[in-house]
């Protein structure tokens, strides 16, 4: 049973999309993504000198006529894609509630997964929380595995404190095939923390996309003016402050600066970046925003 947004129409629309990569990876099967290896696709890649034993069908007879030399046409190999979807499952993703933040994040992940599965590519879901390695699904391939993806993504409640670099590092230790990495998180963590995590992904030569998911109360806290005893959902740390219009404005400025810093880092690092706020329409985000940043072909 698929979640509510995954209507037949939505799924049909998703099937029209294809994930785009900016890097070439070595696939395991023939697929639709170019590989650094030469193969038998229709896309011409290069010439090379004929060697005995080469298939005479690929001889370029025009060059032979002009230069009296034998050259063989070489084509690119097209392979399938291995995609890794990392979902932040820390306690902050349950603010203000699991349904309002974590669930939209999983829906985005599932939508991306369906796009991948529909193209007969491989997708693997990773849930990030704590410092250790969180649960990770096996590679799924084919749209019939969508139910498994849904089951896995909804199997866990967000909880605990996330050390992004630490948790990612544990997951990446077992990653053998390069591919596309999509990280879905609120990124409400110090810049050094997410930068170290994203650099780990970059070090593995993954084509990275980042989707920041925020809830509306995080953008515009609904506090009334007065004394507040704020508790961090992850660390349970407390601070007391006096909430006022000025403090609200200051918070907004800091959030904008924080997001801008994240976006800037992603831009400099060749990472696709997009932000999703939970009160936004999911299909609009998937079919308008994500193609706009170059995530889909």
């Amino acid at each position: 049973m698929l979640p509510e947004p995954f209507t037949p129409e939505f799924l049909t629309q998703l099937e029209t999309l294809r994930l785009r990569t900016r890097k070439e990876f070595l696939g395991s099967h023939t697929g639709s993504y170019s590989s650094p290896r030469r193969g038998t696709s229709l896309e011409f890649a290069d010439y090379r000198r004929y060697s005995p034993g080469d298939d005479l069908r690929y001889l370029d007879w025009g060059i032979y006529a002009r230069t009296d030399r034998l050259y063989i046409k070489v084509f690119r190999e097209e392979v399938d894609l291995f995609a890794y979807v990392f979902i932040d499952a820390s306690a902050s993703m349950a603010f203000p509630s699991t349904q309002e933040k974590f669930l939209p994040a999983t829906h985005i992940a599932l939508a991306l997964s369906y796009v991948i599965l529909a193209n007969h590519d491989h997708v693997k879901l990773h849930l990030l929380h704590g410092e250790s390695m969180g649960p990770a699904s096996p590679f799924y391939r084919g749209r019939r595995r969508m139910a498994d993806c849904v089951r896995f993504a909804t199997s866990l409640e967000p909880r605990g404190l996330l050390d992004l670099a630490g948790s990612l590092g544990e997951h990446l230790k077992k990653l053998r095939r390069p591919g596309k990495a999509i990280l879905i998180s609120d990124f409400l963590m110090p810049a050094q923390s997410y930068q170290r995590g994203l650099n780990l992904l970059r070090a593995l030569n993954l084509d990275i996309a980042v989707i920041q998911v925020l809830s509306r109360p995080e953008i515009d806290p609904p506090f009334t003016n007065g004394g507040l005893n704020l508790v961090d959902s992850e660390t349970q740390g407390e601070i007391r402050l006096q909430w006022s219009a000025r403090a609200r404005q200051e918070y907004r400025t800091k959030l904008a600066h924080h997001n801008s810093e994240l976006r800037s880092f992603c831009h400099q690092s060749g990472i696709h970046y997009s932000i999703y706020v939970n009160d936004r329409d999911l299909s609009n985000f998937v079919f308008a925003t994500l193609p706009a940043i170059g995530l889909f072909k």
Partner: protein
Amino acid sequence: MEFLNPAALYGLFLLPLLLIPYLIRRKPRRVVFSSLLLFIEHGGQAIAKPWGRLRLPPIFFLQLLLLLLLILALAEPVVSVRLSNIAIVMDNSASMQALEDGAARVALARDQARRVLGDLSANGKVDIFTIVPQLQKINNEPVSPSDALGLLAGVEPDDLADTPANYGDVLNQLTANQKYERVYFITDRPLRGQSDVIRVLTVGKPRDNLAITAFSVSPSSLVNRRLEASVEVANYSGQDQRVTVTIRDDGSGSALASRELKIPARRTASATFQGLSEKPYYTAEIDATDALTLDNRQYAVAANARSLKILAISPRPQALNSLRMIPGISLTIVAPEEYQQTDRSGFGLEIFHYSAPALLPLNPSLLVLPPDSNPVVKLGNPITRPVASGWRESHPLNRYLNLTLFRPAYARPLVPQTAGETIIETVQGPVAFTIEHQGKRLLVLGFDPFPYLGRENLPMSIFTLNFLDWFISASGTKGRATGEPVALAAAPRESILTTPRGGKHVVKPASTSFTKTFYQGIYQLNRGSDRQLLAINYQSASESDLQHSKPIELKPTESAIQGGSTLFSFWPYLVLASLLLFIIEWFFVPPVNRRQLLAAAPGPKLS
């Protein structure tokens, strides 16, 4: 501006309590948020300082003002419009001699009076009063402030205790009668209550003090001529004290006897000195260095001998003749009809035996089975050999007396017609009854103790010696308190009475008392070649107790309120302003909104 009820100003300390509801309302709501990253500044501080700046709504300041006005209204602020006619009542009781850091309280009181007079207009009129021996004005006509200062310089405390008057009433009466705009009472007693016209200015603080409260020198009994001194010392402090009591011959100043005495806190202790040599008068001193030195010394006069001069009036003189066998007794017997013509001066006791005077005599008297025409008692039916059914315990008249053996052959129970004390009582009624009349002792017996038979009738003889001793002690050497009148025996001519401070007073032949005993010491009465010494001592426990002075109760009376016309009181305006503010506050925050505000005070948890 002054406050008639300054105690209400302590309410100002309660004003900060008004913050409590706002602080409770401001109690931070506990809200879980996804991450506090963006609330923490670079240095780890909160965006806003913890608690932030105390932001109070305007309604708080309105309520603060409202409370402030109410407290000020309770304090009853008044503004003196003008003062031109005041009275200064100086406490000149003995406790004003107490020292406060080297200065007498009376000097501090003068300083206070100087300040009061300094605030008075130059053409103001002042009356000066002192309170002992009674409230009296020391100036005939109202004086100017500068003249009042001169008068006050001459006010010295007497050795007199404060009168037990209700000064609140007395001063209110004074204010009403004399129409003073303000009366300043400068005293060392604390104040309780308040009045808008009467101002009590208290000088001095509670102090530790030791005092000799009793001192007497007398022969130990009628027949024993050895002198015995008894001294009682009171400790009016919170800790035990040890003092040395010294008995001196006041003439030469030499010490006759001395003893160390330990006195528990807030208690008294007494010492007895026996075998004193005969001196004209004696002084008892304690070596305490306390606040009030006046009560560290007392005086006493010892009789040269225990003698009693008796005038007996009896139709049966034979029975009374037996008294002559008692040492120290000199007896004159007259018939009842000769009594009026008899010169009664110089007699220490008049015995009316089966007779009675028309009026009570001025000398101490004994009435034995008086006729029914006497003014003191009625006599009941005769009884024979009555048994004593009750008696006054530890009374000098019952001393050494076994009343079970005390059975007179004939008696008539007494029916007292005046207040007195029953000494011996039978089933039928009292048979011995004493009265104090104008400082004189009167004993009425319903039986005849005469003749004096010595050992042959021991109970009756002991009783006879007891009442003779009792009469001697009354007329004897025991010191009197300052302020008490001294009873004088009738004299044929004028006498001179010299006070301890050298003042001389002429005593008329008809004078029966001397009242100006304002100073402690030895008073000397010279009647020709006769010289009589009187010891007058300052004896006031309430005045010597400098720790617990009785407060002065002031109650505003109608007359006092009328007299307060010079004070403009504006507390009603403050109350009106408070009401107005209350209405404004009601308008801004009606109770419904208030409840909503309070209900909404704890913020909702967002997760």
